């Protein structure tokens, strides 16, 4: 649901440009991205090179050192992210914005137990005693539907299955009660049956805490089923924004092309799939 009018939007970005310094000069990755959102589920869809992950990383201030960012406006809940001192940005990043990434095995520390990591995530955001943090961690593991949470507290990341690792990741991110969650392809590495369970869980978590969610994915169909609004990106730009239910009435040829080239179960034998005819005009709008 969108924010009530008297509250500032959770995210307000205008004309965001990100470029990378390379041997060949400046390589643009984002060319003027603008959007705003409240406490709703927004999907950001694009193929590789569209800039969807860079958008998420820009909000979190997680761009690599050779990246250059400039924007007219980049606000989180009324606070200016562009002029914020790094220490303050780190605090916001830990406490108020969470990040769930594609492969939890790469984000979870392999030499620390699961419980340790959740407790650490919590205590970084809220200075409370260790025992209380541990109880909260166990509660959180139960919330993400892990059976026997007390046992899982002592388990190490490599002993977890993909689905469980992703749930642990979500527990870690949500335990600090953030206002905004950025999920970058959170289910792409999971089996399709596990994907749906994890998504349902994410849905419940976000609804229960009235969090905003930015769901970054390459899967247009999934995003349209899961989110309230869909932003379609191509070549570092937003080419279309629409309500999830309106996907069938998409107007931009890239969005329509992307939908049409998906193989469908009712495909006729011998028929070729529709392909996307790329138009260079999309890169300049």
């Amino acid at each position, binding site marked *: 649901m969108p924010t009530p009018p008297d509250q500032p939007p959770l995210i307000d970005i205008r004309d965001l440009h990100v470029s990378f310094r390379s041997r060949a000069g400046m390589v643009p990755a984002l060319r003027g991205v603008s959007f705003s959102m409240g406490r709703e589920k927004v999907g950001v869809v694009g*193929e590789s090179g569209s800039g969807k992950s860079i958008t998420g990383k820009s909000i979190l201030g997680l761009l690599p050192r050779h990246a250059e960012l400039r924007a007219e406006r980049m606000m989180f809940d009324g606070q200016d992210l562009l002029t914020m001192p790094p220490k303050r940005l780190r605090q916001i990043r830990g406490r108020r914005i969470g990040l769930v990434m594609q492969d939890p095995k790469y984000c979870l520390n392999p030499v620390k137990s699961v419980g340790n990591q959740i407790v650490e995530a919590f205590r970084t955001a809220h200075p409370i005693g260790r025992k209380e943090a541990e109880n909260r961690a166990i509660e959180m593991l139960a919330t993400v539907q892990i059976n026997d949470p007390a046992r899982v507290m002592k388990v190490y990341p490599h002993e977890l299955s993909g689905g469980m690792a992703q749930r642990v990741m979500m527990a870690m991110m949500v335990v600090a009660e953030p206002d905004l969650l950025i999920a970058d392809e959170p289910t792409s590495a999971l089996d399709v049956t596990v994907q749906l369970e994890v998504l349902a869980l994410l849905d419940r978590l976000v609804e229960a805490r009235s969090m905003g969610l930015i769901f970054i994915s390459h899967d247009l169909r*999934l995003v349209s*089923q899961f989110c309230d609004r869909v932003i379609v990106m191509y070549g570092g730009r937003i080419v279309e924004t629409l309500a999830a239910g309106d996907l069938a009435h998409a107007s931009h040829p890239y969005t329509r092309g992307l939908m049409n080239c998906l193989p469908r179960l009712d*495909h006729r034998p011998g028929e*070729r*799939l529709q392909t*996307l005819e790329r138009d260079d005009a999309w890169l300049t709008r």
Partner: protein
Amino acid sequence: MADPVNRPAGPEAILELADVSVRFGTLLAVDRVSFGLYRGESLGVVGESGSGKSTVLRAISNLSPICSGEIRHRGVPLGRGRTRAFRRAVQMVFQDPYGSLHPRQTIERQLSEPLRILGLGDRHDRILSMMEKVRLPSTFLYRFPHQLSGGQRQRVAIARALLLEPEILLLDEPTSALDVSVQAEVLNLLMDLRERDGLTYLFVSHDLAVVGALCDRLLIMRGGQIVEELTRDMLQSGNVRTDYARALLTASKGYRPG
């Protein structure tokens, strides 16, 4: 869980697996699997991670030796190695476009390798015509893999597999790592090639919709066993027998809130 489905192959099968098992340490990755592959068909093998679907392909190509059972090619049982004739007849396309090409060799060098190994002549002509067949410009021949996109690399991988003029192509999730729009192009290419050259495909995937587009018949694997066999019609009409197949079918339709 329902009993595994293992239909012994008919006499016209060009590839048959009879009671094949593959073991990795204590894990039985493929558990007494039997099926037949018939000339000209496109057979899909669908499953989630750990189902053993990729291991079946590796067993056929001898990348993972079998511990029991028999594989027959045109009726002749395969031994512990693979003959030259088999290598020419059966080739494979791998999943990861970034890993399946040698990072330090030019495309031309990599495409000439199968021809060199098997002593086939006219290398340059064969390579040029193959590049045309997979719709890649010939200037790409002298580039390195990191200068190509994922879709282009997969086309090179397909070209490499086809240079030996095989009759059977083993495809291990060839489009899973590609963008959706690129996937459509590569799948169309695979359909064109099959029609033009009369190839037989054994296509492994986790994606039911992709398999439905490319395959006439499919096997569903779970835990190393074949749990169901379906034709495309049965898949599209939802005429499935096992609960697992039904769960896969439902999941492939996407997320339903609530």
